């Protein structure tokens, strides 16, 4: 545990834990809305913010937050009004964000592509004290929204049309989801990098889905996976001198594969229990309906 003696490692681990919590907490709503790639899009737009931060010599983290929040709001507006041409407008927004980032950082006196690389793929050792402060503030906002409004966000992400009829402010909640996702991207930017942010939003949720049956369980398991892999990846990168972002993402994918392998026998056992319960209450038709139900649920 000698890595805890270094101030930079303490900062890195704190940032890693906060990312491990916030990224899946927002990601679950994006996956539920079938917008798994939205985090990726916001990551591209945030690059312009990083570039602008260097150009104007402001904090790249806060500048990236500002620009990605604006980008996320713009994406949400395009989704409302864009209808069929919406995806092309979004594609242009992503490419513009990426090109803008590269352009601004090269125009900046202190910037270089090397600076940009640390934001694209994450660089734990260069996480500064002010970065950590920013990450703490932003992570608190994300946790407050994703936990405090979980029932509302669940309803809107599950069925937007129905949510409107329950009187929920659907547009406000959609905007809030987009803004929270944008904030999470900038929280995670220093740890896993802009190009890999989306993986940490989506893959822990996908892994948790393999074994969970309820939304609440999916949420808890996804956050547990998120925290485990970010800590694991950070410590591994300290001992093995490998890039933390890539390590974290590969660990997450490993967790997904492991849980998928675990899920098949679990589903079979649940199906058997279900069939047995049905058979006990209704002894008249035990063979055919029982076996049919078991087969139905194996594929889930």
């Amino acid at each position: 545990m000698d890595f805890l003696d270094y101030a930079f490692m303490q900062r890195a681990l704190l940032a890693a834990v906060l990312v491990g919590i916030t990224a899946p907490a927002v990601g679950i709503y994006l996956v539920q809305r079938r917008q798994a790639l939205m985090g990726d899009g916001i990551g591209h737009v945030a690059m312009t913010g990083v570039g602008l931060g260097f150009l104007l010599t402001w904090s790249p983290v806060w500048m990236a937050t500002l620009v990605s929040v604006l980008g996320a709001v713009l994406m949400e507006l395009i989704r409302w009004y864009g209808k069929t041409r919406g995806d092309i407008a979004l594609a242009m927004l992503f490419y513009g964000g990426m090109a803008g980032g590269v352009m601004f950082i090269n125009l900046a006196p202190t910037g270089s592509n090397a600076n940009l690389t640390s934001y694209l793929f994450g660089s734990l050792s260069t996480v500064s004290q002010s970065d950590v402060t920013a990450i703490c503030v932003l992570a608190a906002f994300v946790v407050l929204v994703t936990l405090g409004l979980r029932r509302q966000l669940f309803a809107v992400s599950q069925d937007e049309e129905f949510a409107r009829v329950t009187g929920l402010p659907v547009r406000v909640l959609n905007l809030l989801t987009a803004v929270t996702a944008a904030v999470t991207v900038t929280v995670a930017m220093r740890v896993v990098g802009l190009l890999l942010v989306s993986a940490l939003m989506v893959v822990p949720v996908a892994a948790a889905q393999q074994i969970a049956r309820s939304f609440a369980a999916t949420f808890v398991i996804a956050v547990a996976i998120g925290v485990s892999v970010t800590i694991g990846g950070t410590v591994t990168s300290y001992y093995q001198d490998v890039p933390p972002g890539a390590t974290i993402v590969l660990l997450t994918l490993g967790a997904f594969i492991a849980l998928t392998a675990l899920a098949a026998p679990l589903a079979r056992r649940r199906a058997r229990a279900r069939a047995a319960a049905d058979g006990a209450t209704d002894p008249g038709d035990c063979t055919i309906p029982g076996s049919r139900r078991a087969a139905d649920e194996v594929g889930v």
Partner: protein
Amino acid sequence: MTEPVVSLRGVRADLGSRPVLRGIDLTVHRGEVVALLGANGSGKSTAVRSVIGQVQTGAGAIELFGTDRRRFRDWHRVGYVPQRTTAAGGVPATVTEVVSSGRLSRARFGVLRKADHAAVRRALDLVGMADRAKDSVDALSGGQHQRVLIARALACEPELLIMDEPMAGVDLASQEVLAHTLTEQVSQGTTVLLVLHELGPLEPLIDRAVVLRDGCVVHDGPPPKAVGQHALPGHDHVHPHAPAGAEPIRTGLLS
């Protein structure tokens, strides 16, 4: 007559450049069960979606419980069953979790109290899904999905129930459960406006049928028993065992 629960006067709506509703008049009184019938594309779905504010209307007036729809805020008085083949989203959710979201219109700040959880359990009982409460909705059949969607609408104990093709893709056993649930609701005074493709097992419940054709009302009166449902304008038959469990229509990266 008592005050109308739903009132549409001269409602027009366009989807793109195509007029879908061309001046619809429709009134539903308290305690009535009104079926909206018509062929595919006749505008019946658009008509109910305009009532709940899901479709922008070009002209005309829509009132819910005597209040202009745009100023209407008492959404807990309305239960809505959208046209869906699945209750599932992109993440697993239990039957209880899905049905609980129907209670949000009565919960302050989204906090569910004891009484709210009890209402959710009652709604599940009404559709005969109480024994599946903790199961994932992914594991349900098409008819059970529809029962979950109806329980979600009933969770707020509504005075008005609006349903868009509740019998589409539902097996016969579930159709009977749904007809029974609806009968109980109606006997307690619930007003019902529902879009149907054919009257089917709900026929004895229906007080009045409104038939749409090309965005206009062509019949408003007793259900068209004499002519038979198969003689309705532009009728085409949908089997109750049509493929269920299809994904909701959402395309594109962020659509």
